[in-house]
């Protein structure tokens, strides 16, 4: 995508929701996706029930306003990822 980001995954620069096989849900901007996993920038992590919000409540607010970037960069290991969706499509 773009002039300066060749070689990156098609979702590079796109804010996504990464679902996992556990209670954690990640929201962040994709830097790349490779055999290590999903590399997210300016990301947030939500655990079911955290801050007394359900996953649905968290995603509803995230879809409307975005998320506070509590993590500058993180990698969601490939073996934990069960799904990736564009936040803008929620």
């Amino acid at each position, binding site marked *: 995508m773009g002039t300066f980001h060749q070689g990156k995954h098609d979702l590079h620069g796109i804010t996504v929701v990464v679902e996992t096989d556990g209670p954690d849900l990640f929201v962040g901007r994709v830097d790349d996706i490779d055999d290590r996993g999903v590399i997210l920038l300016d990301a947030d992590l939500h655990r079911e029930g955290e801050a007394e919000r359900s996953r649905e409540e968290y995603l509803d607010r995230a879809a409307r*306003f975005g998320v506070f970037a509590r993590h500058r960069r993180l990698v969601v290991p490939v073996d934990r990822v069960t799904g990736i969706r*564009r936040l803008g499509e929620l």
Partner: protein
Amino acid sequence: MPYSPLIVNPMRQELTSVGVQELTTPEDVDAFMNDKDGTAMLVVNSVCGCAAGMARPGIRTALEHERRPDRVASVFAGQDLEATAHARGYFDDVPPSSPSIAFFKDGELVWFMPRHRIEGRTADDVAADLRAVFDEHCATVAAS
């Protein structure tokens, strides 16, 4: 670190040339935000491709619509740091992102377009969303 004005000025002018007021100081922001009558749109401008390819062109197109906000202004994230931070303080429960667009009616935030609703879309998509907000909240601008 802010970019050179030589690079950024065209990005500013792309909005100011269509009547968007640029807020470059906290005082500018206060003056704009403290006028709570009617409708107001605040654009958080940015140097990124999403702003260049989608947000700014979409905003320019939307502002041609027969219904428009009473007032439109912008702050420039990454460039006018204090003004941008000060503006975000008016809706600090909203995560900062850029580009982004905040729409106020009678001083209340009634609609927000975060970055993730700009990235991966087109300028026409952005314009369409803005026109829908304008149709819902704004009065028809009298022909001049």
